[in-house]
């Protein structure tokens, strides 16, 4: 059950930091110059080529290990997975940055899973999908769609003056079809209780039916956001910007999309591949351009150039233009918190999102991981209640610290439970839990 990390760059380092506490972790570093920063982590370092079968055999890797190829080179990652798989049937996870590799080795493409890569991760695509979901729901800063759309997860930031302030959660008497499942305040992350009171700046996650969440939007979040998403501006037409535009074109035909990209050649490629999005050649921080193209009409601005400084500048201009939702990529994970503290609605780091997803995925045992929120602080897991479970009222369950049953699927019907509802044998439960509580929760059922 070791984790073997092939690579020694930033992603590998963050992985090692996440995994070292939980399991035996081995890092295979090709570049001796990058080894020193791993010193403070409790990991075994090997210097050598991760594609070298000798090195891998020397590690005695076995089928129960997880092999994570996350060096800076796509090709090296793919070959490392191939070697590792040949040495033994180890579970392989491969990071790539190029679309063609993702397409060629992705099991999602409708073909048989590629035999030597069990899971392929393209962080830019994950990020783009996440941003597109957040764009589509006005006001929300995170959105996950579960159970084929019967249950939604939406996260909001509480604005000063919000009607959600000044009352306990119990007194708020929210729609019965939803539950408040998490509250993030600075670095603190917890599951709210009946006596919880929200404060301005809190990020609150709700889970429930789409209908209930719409009602929540109408009653509590309407005035801080535009009523509808009609115009979306994407600054930066690289991989991420391009995929976001593609998803939005497919999901919402009526949205007007503008992409501002500085590289003329890239503009031409984008224009050829996108159906209705308007591709503009120019600098996203040029006020004249923003004026002439009437960017101030946007309901959402997404800044995904490849430079944090540029993204920040464009985002600040977006805030200045009072665009209701500004989403920014922070390539440096240290900038995520800073960006959000400046008023940017959502700041996301692609590597962090991918790493947390993989870490959560590696942890799973009997439970199935459905979604990860707040860059890994919260998980939505699915648990099948065993057949010999004694029917129990939710309010009688042993107190689950930092976890909450958010939905029950019984005989094909999905519902959001209240305290007096029961959990019965063979139910499927959707549970929201903090990262730390996830493992303990599984033992209950």
């Amino acid at each position: 059950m070791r984790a073997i990390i092939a690579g020694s760059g930033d992603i590998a380092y963050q992985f090692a930091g996440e995994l070292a506490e939980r399991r035996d972790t081995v890092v295979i570093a090709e570049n001796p110059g990058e080894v020193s920063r791993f010193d403070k982590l409790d990991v075994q370092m090997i210097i050598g080529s991760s594609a070298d079968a000798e090195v891998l055999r020397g590690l005695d890797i076995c089928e129960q290990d997880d092999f994570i190829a996350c060096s800076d080179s796509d090709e090296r990652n793919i070959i490392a997975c191939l070697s590792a798989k040949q040495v033994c049937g180890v579970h392989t996870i491969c990071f790539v940055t190029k679309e063609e590799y993702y397409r060629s080795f992705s099991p999602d493409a409708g073909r048989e899973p590629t035999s030597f890569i069990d899971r392929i991760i393209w962080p830019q695509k994950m990020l783009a999908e996440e941003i597109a979901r957040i764009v589509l729901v006005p006001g929300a800063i995170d959105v996950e769609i579960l159970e084929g759309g019967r249950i939604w997860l939406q996260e909001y930031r509480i604005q000063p003056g919000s009607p959600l302030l000044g009352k306990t959660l119990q007194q708020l008497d929210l729609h019965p079809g939803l539950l408040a499942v998490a509250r993030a305040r600075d670095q603190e992350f917890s599951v709210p209780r009946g006596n919880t009171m929200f404060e301005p700046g809190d990020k609150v996650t709700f889970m429930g039916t789409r209908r209930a969440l719409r009602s929540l939007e109408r009653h509590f979040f309407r005035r801080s956001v535009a009523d509808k998403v009609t115009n979306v501006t994407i600054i930066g037409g690289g991989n991420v910007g391009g995929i976001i535009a593609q998803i939005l074109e497919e999901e919402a035909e009526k949205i007007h999309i503008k992409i501002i990209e500085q590289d003329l050649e890239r503009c031409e490629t984008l224009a050829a591949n996108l159906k209705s999005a308007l591709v503009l050649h120019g600098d996203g921080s040029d006020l004249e351009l923003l004026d002439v193209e009437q960017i101030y009409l946007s309901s959402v601005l997404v800044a995904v150039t490849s430079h944090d400084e540029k993204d920040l500048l464009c985002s600040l201009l977006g805030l200045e233009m009072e665009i209701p939702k500004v989403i920014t990529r922070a390539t440096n994970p240290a900038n995520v918190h800073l960006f959000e503290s400046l008023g940017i609605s959502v700041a996301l780091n692609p590597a962090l999102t991918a790493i947390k997803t993989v870490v959560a995925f590696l942890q799973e045992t009997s439970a199935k991981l459905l979604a990860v929120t707040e860059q890994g602080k919260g998980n939505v897991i699915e648990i099948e209640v065993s057949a010999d479970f004694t029917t129990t009222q939710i309010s009688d369950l042993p107190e689950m610290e930092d976890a909450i049953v958010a939905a029950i699927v019984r005989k094909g019907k999905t519902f959001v439970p209240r305290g007096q509802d029961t959990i019965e044998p063979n139910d499927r439960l959707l549970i929201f839990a903090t990262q730390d509580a996830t493992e303990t929760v599984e033992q209950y059922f």
Partner: protein
Amino acid sequence: MRLTDILTVDRINLDLDVQTKDEVIESLVDLVVETVKGTNRDAILKAVRAREQLMSTGVGNSVAIPHGKTNAVKSLVAAFGRCSVPVEYNALDDQPVSLVFLLVGPEDAAGPHIKALSRISRLLSYGEFRSLLSSVTTPEEVLAAIAAEEKHHFELKT
């Protein structure tokens, strides 16, 4: 910057008797010229028309926000006009225009300019606010409506 700081009662005309896009622009520019000392009508007209040529500022929903930057004004000023009969404006949605905000600012104030511009367009994207502007009868009511909406939408922001 609040819109109520740059728009005054004497720069509001609720009965613009005009037939063409250019007449709309001219009559609003006249409101600015009449109320701002030491400005230059031709310079303002030139700036606004130049901007209009790049792309129509008729943003849809019967709203137009003609604007321009010229050093003929020393600070940002706005004027508001309501056409008695909707005017063809070559708008984004091809519908005639009746609610028109003019915005003129000095060349070196791109930041406040675009902020005012976006604020006007944001407020006018609310259907209820547009209906209100279409039904008020005095310039004072216009200012009061804008003040209320600005407070409502923008002062909650952190």
